[in-house]
């Protein structure tokens, strides 16, 4: 029997944490479920009705939108598979040169907002003035643009490109968890690399791969920004954009009842996906073997195929990152977009950059700064407390607490923002329309990530380290200050930075809960785009550069500190 449980049982705090978390998570979601059975505006009396569901389920539009959503999910998944699997194999299994560089580039790419890429692609591929379309039309003498960016396949492809990096990290870590001896024994018994890959590695990888694809299928049907930018102009709706359209209609009153019922249906749909994801993950974990320290997987030597490997990296990075970013820079230099050529360079100006502070506006910068700092601080504090209870205490309902903290992760951002809006309106909370409701939304959505990352940090810090301090005469507070905080500090900072940057790039909830008082940089770029493309592009370029620099520097410093302790 394990007896490594101490007197640190903590009294009533865990129970309070549980109730707080449940209230924060279930309050908005419960209100939304309740509201999906009503019509009218939140906060005003209205009868209970099944109209929202009946209306949705009896309308052919709904089925088309569901098909679109599924199509988007499948299309994204296929794109992620086509790019993600080869990238994961290259980065996880081979001696590809400059692997750490590529991995850092991919991690920065996760932080670059999808809406900036979508805007760039419009500049490149819109049917009338898209730079590539115009070029091809000129080259081949076509009457019509060959590629239409405002279409479901294009949306799926671009969304797939931007979800590939996190999928690569997921698959690479599955590769690392695999028992190397399974392959070595095949090799000893006379099988070659290609046979081993086909007969051993891939079958063993299959559950992890399928799990990753399911996860990104769910993520794809939950995302909003890319289908909104590329789908709404040609009125191609998916569920998330429909919800947005219902709550922020071009004309008329918002229909929160219908939006809520669609939100519930979307959540159910993604829950089914997540159910299969967790089932597959369980199977994948059966194959995973925890190997001892000092073990190093033998990497496949690429030899002269090295260049093919680098080629594939670029084959992915050019459309996913380089081309959109260059387009953004190009667009930021011209008041009116020009086809790239040397002849137009004399028209280029840095006006958009010199006016950037005014364009963003002090209120927006202040909102953004507050959003980042407060969200990250609240999430990491709450996560640290929850993780401590989950990992260390003997609290009876700690599993429930852990799940409650993870639950918002399973609710699509659009739905969660809707839930917050309905919740705040119903109970007439004064936070509606302020920056605080955005902090609230971002914080609760990030709680799942925060607790997961701190759980794994806390598990690594052996309880003995605390008890050694206590037994030798240090009070609990001194142990916290001198032992625990220094040990989890780097992880806390790392998580803080990541969540702050995610809040900086977040646009879905910011748009759903948009008001003139809570504009942040992401929504500012979004609304500037139509009025002043160059200015929006310049803001986007600065945003990307800031994110990249902060992340590169932070990772450099923190990783060294984390590495020093392990």
């Amino acid at each position, binding site marked *: 029997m394990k007896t490594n449980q101490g007197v640190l049982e903590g009294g009533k705090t865990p129970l309070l944490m549980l109730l707080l978390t449940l209230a924060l998570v279930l309050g908005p979601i419960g209100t939304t479920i309740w509201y999906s059975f009503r019509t009218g505006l939140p906060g005003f009396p209205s009868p209970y009705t099944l109209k929202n569901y009946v209306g949705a389920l009896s309308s052919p539009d709904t089925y088309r939108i569901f098909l679109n959503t599924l199509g988007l999910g499948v299309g994204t998944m296929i794109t992620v598979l086509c790019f993600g699997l080869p990238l994961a194999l290259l980065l996880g299994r081979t001696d590809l040169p400059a692997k750490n560089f590529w991995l850092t580039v991919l991690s920065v790419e996760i932080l670059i907002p999808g809406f900036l890429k979508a805007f760039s692609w419009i500049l490149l591929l819109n049917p009338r003035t898209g730079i590539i379309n115009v070029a091809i039309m000129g080259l081949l003498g076509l009457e019509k643009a060959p590629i239409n960016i405002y279409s479901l396949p294009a949306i799926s492809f671009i969304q797939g490109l931007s979800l590939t990096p996190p999928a690569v990290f997921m698959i690479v870590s599955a590769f690392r968890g695999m028992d190397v001896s399974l392959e070595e024994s095949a090799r000893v018994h006379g099988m070659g690399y290609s046979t081993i890959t086909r007969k051993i590695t891939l079958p063993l990888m299959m559950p992890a791969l399928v799990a990753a694809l399911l996860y990104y299928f769910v993520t794809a049907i939950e995302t909003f920004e890319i289908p909104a930018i590329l789908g709404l102009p040609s009125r191609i709706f998916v569920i998330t954009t429909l919800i947005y359209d219902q709550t922020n209609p071009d004309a008329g009153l918002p229909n929160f009842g219908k939006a809520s019922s669609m939100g519930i249906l979307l959540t159910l749909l993604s829950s089914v996906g997540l159910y299969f994801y967790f089932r597959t993950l369980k199977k994948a974990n059966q194959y995973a073997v925890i190997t001892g320290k000092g073990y190093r997987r033998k990497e496949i030597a690429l030899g002269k195929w090295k260049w093919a490997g680098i080629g594939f990296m670029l084959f992915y990075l050019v459309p996913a990152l380089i081309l959109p970013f260059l387009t953004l820079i190009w667009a930021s230099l011209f008041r009116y977009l020009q086809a790239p050529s040397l002849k137009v360079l004399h028209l280029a100006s840095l006006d958009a950059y010199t006016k950037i502070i005014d364009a963003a506006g002090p209120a927006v910068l202040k909102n953004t700064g507050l959003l980042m700092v407060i969200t990250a601080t609240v999430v990491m504090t709450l996560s640290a407390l929850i993780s401590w209870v989950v990992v260390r205490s003997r609290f009876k309902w700690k599993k429930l607490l852990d799940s409650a903290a993870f639950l918002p992760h399973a609710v699509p951002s659009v739905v969660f923002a809707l839930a917050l809006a309905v919740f705040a309106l119903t109970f007439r909370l004064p936070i509606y329309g302020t920056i605080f409701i955005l902090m609230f939304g971002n914080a609760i959505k990030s709680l799942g990530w925060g607790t997961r990352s701190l759980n794994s940090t806390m598990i690594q810090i052996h309880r003995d*380290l605390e008890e050694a301090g206590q037994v030798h005469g240090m*009070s609990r507070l001194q142990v916290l200050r001198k*032992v625990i905080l220094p040990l989890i500090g780097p992880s806390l900072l790392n998580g803080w930075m990541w969540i702050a940057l995610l809040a900086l790039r977040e646009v879905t909830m910011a748009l759903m809960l948009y008001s003139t008082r809570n504009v942040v940089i992401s929504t500012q770029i979004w609304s500037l785009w139509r009025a002043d493309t160059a200015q929006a592009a310049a803001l986007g370029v600065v945003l990307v550069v800031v994110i990249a620099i902060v992340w590169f520097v932070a990772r450099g410093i923190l990783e060294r500190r984390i590495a020093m*302790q392990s």
Partner: protein
Amino acid sequence: MIRITGLTKTYQTGQGTVKAVREISLDIKTGEFCILLGPSGCGKTTTLRCVAGLERPDLGEIVIEDTVVNSHQPQIYVAPEDRGLGMIFQSYAIWPHLNVFQNIALPLQHGKRKLSRAEVRDRVHEALDLVRLRGMETRRATELSGGQQQRVALARAFACKPKVLLMDEPLSNLDAKLREEMRFEIKQITSGKGITALYVTHDQSEALVMADVVAVMHGGVILQRGSPADLYRNPENLEVAQFLGDMNFIQGRKVDGGLRGPHQVETPLGILTSASAREVSRGNAVVLGIRPEDVRLYREKPQADNALFTSIVHRQFLGNATVYELECNGVRVFARATIYPTPVDSNMDGIFAVFDPSCLQLFRSAESQK
């Protein structure tokens, strides 16, 4: 120095309530090295952690140097940091963000002890001298080998000048050779400084080598307490006999002899005589036990009680001894011969074995105990 009375501790687990420790009592004198020995899950670590104050017992009293640190009535609980202890953990618990000096100094600077800077330096140096790690002050804890980490943990505990030193399987993560070295070193330092020690292990040889007093635990209770030699020569019951050293067991029934022996026991090997002083009435099921080194081997039939002719099934040469697996009437018995030349030739397939009555232990068998 340490007095434990009626200590009880239960846990709530997913499978229900587990009684980890049941009303145990133990007295440890000043300067004594006491070892709690038992298999995993026997409650030894829980007992140690109750003494440390890291667990709160349900019932019972713990007194450390005339101070009641735990009691049920009146409710007393002294926090771990106020008990004036030193402790070595199984994982060593070396703080990875600090160097060697800082690891030892931290409790002195920030604990209840709060010494001046000069005192801290002196204490740390003294402790490092003791464990022969002088000159390693600025090494990072993570750069140390397992043995060195162990020594830092020792130094940290000694630097606190504790009334009582607690150790929770401190050697179980070391390799065999280092473990033997450290056994000796820990014992030497504690007895040199006159420190009272409570040490938990499942390794019987550690208990035999290091302890002044061993308490064998099983199922949350102390089965027997005594000096290592006492426990080895006179185990009180089957569990202790099984746990400490090797022993051959022979099932039987007492057929004749006085209540306090000598006992005549009917076994598959015939009637055997045991000189054990244990009280057993006639007709009771018993188990006879003899250690392999107590089995004497002879080529010719000797004039002695309990002499049997056995066949040699297997022999194992260990260098300093040879172990024979003998068989007689379906009963297998191990004999350990250390004298050279051994009385057994390589071509022999049978030999006489003698179980001296004074070496033949007698236990009540498990069924008759119930």
